[in-house]
């Protein structure tokens, strides 16, 4: 059993900012993350490796102060004030005194110290006075014919895989879907040696033009966009366009692209299709803990008050979980949550204006990249929608609720627990997922019974 003043779930920008704010108030802080390295998705591969100075500074500030538990997944809450987590026996627990930096500077140092049998898994209960959820977001992935072929990935998905050493040198890649993430993905893939054949953006030209104009009010984002554009020179950016289908027998060979304003489809040969339609907040853990979830636009978000407090006592939420807004909003929300949970409301209040600024930016983003209705009509009757249980569109479209479809077809009953198909069935059929399933992540029976 372990006890923390403040327990943070998620070591991305929001979680690290929350932890740093709490540590500065002298609190005892624990940080749990299910990845092997901290940084979340945007700083994947470790905050100390990032060009973003804020990542390195936050990480540096936590050295020797916070206790860090990587490769650790929260399963459920056995009682108020604590959570049960599962960790592979080989995953290091980095005590505050040891210094996170020394231990996690590379996979090498972990290897030498924590060689052991990966088969062993241990469960542990962590107690807290205050809990800060910073569980981030995942991609919205939509079904289309061929999307289950090896070689078809999420957009951020292929970026994450590339950061983990996925071999892309000389590979032809089509980046598709929607949102500014596509540009960042294409830049990463190009830097890893991939040939980006095209970026396919479903948003129309007028919406993109209005958004580009709005960047003038946000100089840091404008600068970033111009840098990305320069790095992507020569890559066709197909606006008002979307992937209709992926072709190949056992692996991807080509994608069929619908260009807006024309009836003809275009075929592009490629080795990978990285296709994602924006982000969805990870709300499942908050939901499992009893926190109120609210529908906002096309997202389900964790409802919070001005202090980032959820509807549950002593539980806060910061970052993408409260609504997708990017790294700047995540950092300021994390900081507010960390300060508020440490009893420093006056200091937290000084950050409200900054938060409001990035919230406005986030609303613009959501409006610009709203999904076009044609995307709901891509799946054919024999297109798989639930990839865990291989349930097709033809079997699902007759049902009126998520629950009845689950009971009759097993849609959403597999190991991803509806996290992938749930985003699709919401858009395709208007179903809203019901209560979160426990344990929140697939678990060993011994982790629950012990």
């Amino acid at each position, binding site marked *: 059993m372990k006890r923390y003043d403040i327990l943070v779930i998620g070591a991305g920008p929001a979680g690290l900012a929350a932890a740093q704010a709490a540590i500065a108030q002298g609190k005892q802080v624990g940080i749990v993350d299910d990845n092997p390295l901290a940084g979340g998705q945007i700083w994947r591969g470790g905050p100390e490796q990032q060009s973003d100075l804020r990542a390195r500074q936050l990480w540096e500030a936590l050295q020797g102060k916070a206790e860090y538990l990587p490769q650790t997944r929260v399963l459920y809450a056995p009682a108020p004030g604590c959570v049960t987590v599962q960790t592979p026996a080989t995953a290091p627990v980095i005590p505050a005194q040891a210094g996170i930096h020394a231990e996690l500077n590379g996979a090498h140092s972990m290897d030498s110290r924590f060689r052991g049998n990966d088969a062993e898994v241990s469960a542990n209960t962590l107690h807290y006075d205050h809990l800060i959820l910073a569980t981030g977001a995942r991609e919205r992935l939509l079904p289309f014919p061929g999307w289950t072929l*090896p070689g078809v990935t999420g957009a951020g998905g292929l970026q994450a895989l590339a950061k*983990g050493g996925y071999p892309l040198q000389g590979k032809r890649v089509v980046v598709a879907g929607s949102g500014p993430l596509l540009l960042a993905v294409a830049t990463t893939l190009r830097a890893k040696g991939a040939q980006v054949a095209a970026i396919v953006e479903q948003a129309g030209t007028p919406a993109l033009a209005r958004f580009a104009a709005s960047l003038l009010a946000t100089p840091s984002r404008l600068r970033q966009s111009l840098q990305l554009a320069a790095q992507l020179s020569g890559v066709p950016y197909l606006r008002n366009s979307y992937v209709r289908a992926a072709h190949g027998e056992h692996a991807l060979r080509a994608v069929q692209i619908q260009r807006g304003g024309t009836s003809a489809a275009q075929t592009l040969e490629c080795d990978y299709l990285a296709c994602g339609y924006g982000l969805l907040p990870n709300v499942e853990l908050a939901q499992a803990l009893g926190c109120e979830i609210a529908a906002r636009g096309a997202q389900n978000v964790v409802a919070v008050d001005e202090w980032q407090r959820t509807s549950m006592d002593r539980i806060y939420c910061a970052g993408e979980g409260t609504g997708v807004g990017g790294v700047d909003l995540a950092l300021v929300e994390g900081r507010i949550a960390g300060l508020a949970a440490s009893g420093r409301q006056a200091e937290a209040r000084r950050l409200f204006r900054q938060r409001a600024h990035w919230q406005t930016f986030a609303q613009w983003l959501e409006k610009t990249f709203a999904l076009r209705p044609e995307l709901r009509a891509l799946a054919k009757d024999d297109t798989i929608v639930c990839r865990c249980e291989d349930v097709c569109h033809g079997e699902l479209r007759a049902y009126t609720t998520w629950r009845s479809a689950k009971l009759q077809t097993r849609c959403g009953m597999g190991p*991803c627990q509806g996290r992938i198909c749930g985003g699709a069935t919401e858009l395709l059929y208007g179903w809203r997922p019901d209560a979160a399933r426990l344990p929140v992540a697939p678990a060993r029976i011994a982790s629950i019974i012990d």
Partner: protein
Amino acid sequence: MTTLTINARLVSVAPGVTVAAAIAIAGSGVTRRSVGGELRAPLCGMGVCQECRVTINGRMHQLACQTLCRDGMQVVTGDSGAGA
């Protein structure tokens, strides 16, 4: 370099490389067969979709995209004919 086996074949990768990447470096990138028998490979890259489940050191259902390669690791994928 880190050396591991994938379906009993030796593969060497740079430090910090994930098991998902090692599987792609070694071959097709296929990690599992779906309940309907289709070949599948990693999709989300961040531990959500569960498509990259493989057997690591005898333990089934490990996420290849969330596991870093270690020396001596034994990985078995779902298209090896040997289970997973």
